[in-house]
């Protein structure tokens, strides 16, 4: 008497279709799953990674005024140092005077 070898059971067509859908779904979503599970890079700005633009803070320069000895006494004097914190020799910030008659500040285009 010989043992009868059990025939492997064939999956039904319906089961095959179900497994095909599951495999396809896993393959489709796996890149997003990997991205989601991967560690995030460290960032100094709390806004990073939240979709907002990074905030750049521009440091306002505080002018430090230094007065040196004049070579000759020219017919021009400073009368006011605007908005600057003073140190060094003897300049002190004065209260803002009336508007100047004119200005100088490089070649204006």
């Amino acid at each position, binding site marked *: 008497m010989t043992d009868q070898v059990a025939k492997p059971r064939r999956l039904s067509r319906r089961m095959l279709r179900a497994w095909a859908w599951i495999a396809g779904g896993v393959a489709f979503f796996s890149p997003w799953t990997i991205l989601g599970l991967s560690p995030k890079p460290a960032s100094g700005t709390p806004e990073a990674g939240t979709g907002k633009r990074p905030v750049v803070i521009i440091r306002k320069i505080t002018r430090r005024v230094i007065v040196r*000895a004049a070579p000759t006494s020219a017919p021009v004097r400073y009368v006011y140092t605007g908005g600057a914190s003073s140190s060094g020799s003897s300049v002190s910030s*004065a209260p803002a005077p009336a508007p100047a008659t004119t200005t100088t500040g490089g070649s*204006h*285009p």
Partner: protein
Amino acid sequence: MTPTVRHDFRAMGTPVALIADRRAGTRAFARAARAVGSVFAREELRFSRFRADSELSRVNARAGRWTKVSPSFAALLGYSLEAAARSAGLFDPTVLPALVAAGYDRDFDELLAGARDALHPPRPCGRWTHIELDGELLRLPRDVGLDFGGVAKGWTVDLAARAAVEEGLPWAVVNAGGDLRIAGTPPADGISVSVEDPDDRSAEVARLSLESGALATSSVTARAWGPGLHHLIDPRTGLPADTGVVQATVWAPTCAEAEVRSTWALLEGPAVLDRTSAVLVMDDGRVVMNLEGRSPAEVAS
């Protein structure tokens, strides 16, 4: 404060203002405004490198050959060559090829309007020693171009301020884009001039009182068309200057001389304060000056 009246127009690619005492009368002021306008028109036709019909363009096109120039052209060129010698070449009227290589190859309004495609390698300067000037006969070396730049503007401001006073104004200030000259007898307390903050043109780093002479300011933040790209060429490198000085405001008896010294100050740095009256704004935020000051109490009064 003295009541003033002003007339604004545009010339040499920059805003120009004539400022005078309001009490001088409208007729004298109108005559002075016309005189100032015609001085600028005349000198722009002589010294502009952006006009094909200017004397400067004609001279540059004839480099390598002897060319007859006008007495005014010869005078300004002689003055520029003398200034170049005095500043050991820091002021250099032959920076034109380097300036063009750095991207300033068209009128500044045009330069701002259109992006610069590509920059060229730096070009050597210091060719002023090879210029031959014999009276009104001039020969430039073959590959050299002249650019008087700010000194032509300062020269014109000097002529215009004198012309304004000759029309009957007791005093007049002519200001061309920050290069200004006072002529005549100003009010006893002088003319107040605000030195703009190079980081914020609406703020001021100093307020000066000008009693005579001229002020000129050179700044690496003015006439700039990109990071590190501006109109002030360091003749030692052929590249836009990077010396730690962001802005130099200089006093001199004439505006042409103030222009020369402000370029020199920007390239040399605070050492220039040993011989020049100036306000320097440094890139670390310091303001270094050697002008004598009035007390805040005097300011308030």
